[in-house]
């Protein structure tokens, strides 16, 4: 066990990150989740399951020494060795609920609590853990961005949530209406996915991802201004069951690329809006549309929504 007895200080989980269930169960000493707790599509989970199965087989023929890199139990088996009162529900592990003990031997597929949580989590976007600033625009980290100023965030269960980024929201200013796609509608990356209205003007916005629309944010029909107030959380637009996720993600900005992209877009916006001048020190107003006073609006839409 010496190898797994790493100093506790080595096991710090950074804010916004969560322990992998394999770490939580104590099978591995340090591993963070990088797949939004969607174990069904997680490469790591798959590899670990295979590893455990192999080593169990091997143990039958020749007894194994127990060492750090020999895994003979899955995380579920390990959790099941705990007293029933200590078997944390996976929503407790991920922090979605306070205290909840698993009554169901980790068979989430048959668990009604899991079903309820799944329903709820579709309605509420996952909270954004890290919000940073790029030239006065908010950027939600751990999120993918399309050049047409939408975002895409893979969530539990392999679904992908989609919304408008802060740049788009500020450029459009006070949104007066939104035309959501129909459920079951097939959207494609880079093609029109939904429309946003501002009084008489309509802007067609590209979808960041290919997939079938499985849910839309019904709150937006009555209160479209939620998009302005909370573009990365309550103002989400639709959820898709993706059809080309891996391929699509390669076509999106992530991490440092997002910051570079937003910075470039800001410079572009400034040079278009300030025709012949360079303005400095500037934080953009919350309603850029209003600031432009209708000047060349079509050109701005074409440029920044890539229509």
């Amino acid at each position, binding site marked *: 066990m010496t190898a797994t007895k790493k100093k506790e200080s080595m096991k710090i989980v950074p804010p916004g990150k969560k322990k992998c269930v394999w770490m939580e169960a104590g099978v591995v000493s340090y591993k963070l989740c990088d797949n939004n707790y969607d174990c069904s599509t997680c490469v790591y989970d798959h590899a670990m399951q295979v590893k455990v199965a192999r080593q169990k087989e091997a143990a039958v023929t020749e007894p194994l020494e127990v060492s750090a890199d020999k895994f003979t139990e899955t995380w579920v088996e390990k959790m099941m060795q705990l007293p029933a009162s200590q078997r944390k529900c996976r929503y407790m592990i991920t922090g979605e609920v306070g205290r909840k003990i698993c009554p169901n031997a980790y068979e989430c597929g048959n668990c009604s609590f899991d079903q309820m949580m799944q329903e709820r989590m579709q309605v509420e976007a996952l909270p954004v853990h890290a919000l940073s600033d790029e030239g006065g625009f908010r950027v939600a980290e751990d999120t993918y961005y399309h050049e047409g100023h939408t975002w895409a965030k893979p969530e539990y269960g392999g679904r992908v949530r989609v919304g408008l980024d802060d740049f788009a929201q500020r450029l459009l200013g006070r949104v007066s209406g939104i035309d959501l796609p129909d459920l079951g509608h097939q959207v494609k990356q880079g093609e029109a996915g939904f429309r946003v209205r501002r009084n008489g003007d309509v802007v067609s916005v590209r979808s960041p991802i290919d997939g079938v629309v499985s849910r839309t944010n019904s709150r937006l029909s009555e209160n479209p201004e939620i998009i302005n107030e909370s573009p990365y959380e309550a103002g989400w637009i639709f959820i898709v069951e993706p059809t080309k996720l891996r391929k699509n993600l390669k076509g999106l900005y992530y991490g440092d690329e997002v910051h570079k992209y937003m910075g470039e877009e800001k410079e572009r916006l400034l040079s278009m809006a*300030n025709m012949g*001048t360079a303005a*400095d*020190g*500037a934080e953009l107003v919350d309603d850029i549309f209003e600031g432009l006073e209708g000047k060349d609006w079509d050109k701005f839409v074409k440029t920044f929504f890539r229509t």
Partner: protein
Amino acid sequence: MSKCVTICAIGFVEEDILDRISGSIQERCGIECKILRGTENPQYAYDERRCQYNSRLILDRLLRCGHDTFGILGVIQVDLFVPIFKYVYGLALIGCQCAVISLHRLRPQFYDHPPNRDLLVVRAQKTALHEIGHSLGLTHCRDRRCVMYSSTRIADTDFKQSHYCPTCLELFTWHLERCQALPYP
């Protein structure tokens, strides 16, 4: 007078601030400066709704008023804006050798800090060099320490140095030679 920039105080501006801006332009850009006082407060540019002054209108006026130097830099106390920005520290007409800077948000008091003349002056010098760079045709630099780095917040201004990085300096000299070769309009 072709190698000279006019520093034009719009409304009241403290003498020593103008002198020290002038000094840093001479040192960093190798351009002589002439200080012009007596330009009145720009009531024509005041926006009632925003309670700020429209910097574009001030630039247009500066450009029209005619001056015998190849460039002009307005210095003003009031808070400036352009329509899509909450505020600006400065605005330049690119390639027209005309710019304006505001001291309003450079004063430590604006951020509830105690008055500090030296800090104010350093900020004003950086902002002036930055806008003069734009007014000659320079764009923003990606080096955070270069005076041509874009300041969104005052911390950006405080972080950068009071001079151009080698690349920007080379560009500056190139632009300067080109526009001084042009006949004065």
